[in-house]
């Protein structure tokens, strides 16, 4: 028999879709987004320590409408990854593997991360409205 390619994880095609799979993919996607977004954090810190012109450039960029949309997405990615990360830590400790529990904790992660995102932007935009 000819040598076959061994299967490599992750498999996406062989399972019936369940929404917890989407949550799992979203955890990885938000993780990658946060890694890219860390560039913004670095830019913010370095610009604050740097020249006035450089700082003004950063504020103009992040304060523009597209900038705000990116920051909003970044904040949701952060809260989602944080909540889903806590769910992962619970699994690592051996809790919450039952199907019903996993579905409920998944829904809780989505709700809590949306609430935290809304709370953050309410705080940020206080006084604007």
């Amino acid at each position, binding site marked *: 028999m000819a040598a076959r390619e061994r299967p*490599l*994880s*992750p498999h996406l095609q062989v399972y019936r879709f369940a929404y917890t799979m989407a949550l799992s993919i979203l955890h*990885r996607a938000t*993780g*990658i987004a*946060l*890694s890219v977004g*860390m*560039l913004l*954090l*670095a830019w*913010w*810190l*370095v610009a*604050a*320590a*740097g*020249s*006035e012109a450089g*700082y*003004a450039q950063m*504020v103009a960029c992040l*304060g523009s409408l597209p900038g705000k949309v990116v920051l909003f997405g970044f*904040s949701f990615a*952060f*809260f989602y990854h*944080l909540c889903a*990360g*806590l769910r992962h*830590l619970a699994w*690592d400790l051996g809790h919450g593997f039952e199907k019903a529990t996993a579905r409920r904790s998944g829904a809780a992660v989505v709700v809590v991360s949306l609430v935290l995102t809304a709370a*953050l*932007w309410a*705080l*940020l935009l206080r006084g604007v409205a």
Partner: protein
Amino acid sequence: MSLQSPLGRVLGKGSAKSGFHHWWVERVSGAALVPLGLWFAFAVAALPNYDQETVRQFIGDPCHAVLLVLLAVAASYHSRMGLQVVVEDYVHGKGAKLVVTLLLNFIHAVLGVAMVLAVVRLSLGGAA
């Protein structure tokens, strides 16, 4: 700390390399980022304005500077660990994997050092 099964221990089997360490520090840095990240997000959102002077004072505050350095170190470390797993899953071929991993290490080192130095500059009053 060992995750080997008793049988595995008797047979001398288990992680041959540093796989468990990677798994462990990814979780430790992640757990550290929960309070650090929440503090950072809400503390920055609560600032009265984002003038350079206000932001400098916020970053340079002795307490904030400690937390920010911890945040910068934990975040760049956690990001590097996470992206390495992504690379291991999707980048096949020994050469490509090695090059991308080294590149990730390099970028994260630069980012981490840049963030820490910016905070240190502001907290020690070295900024112009």
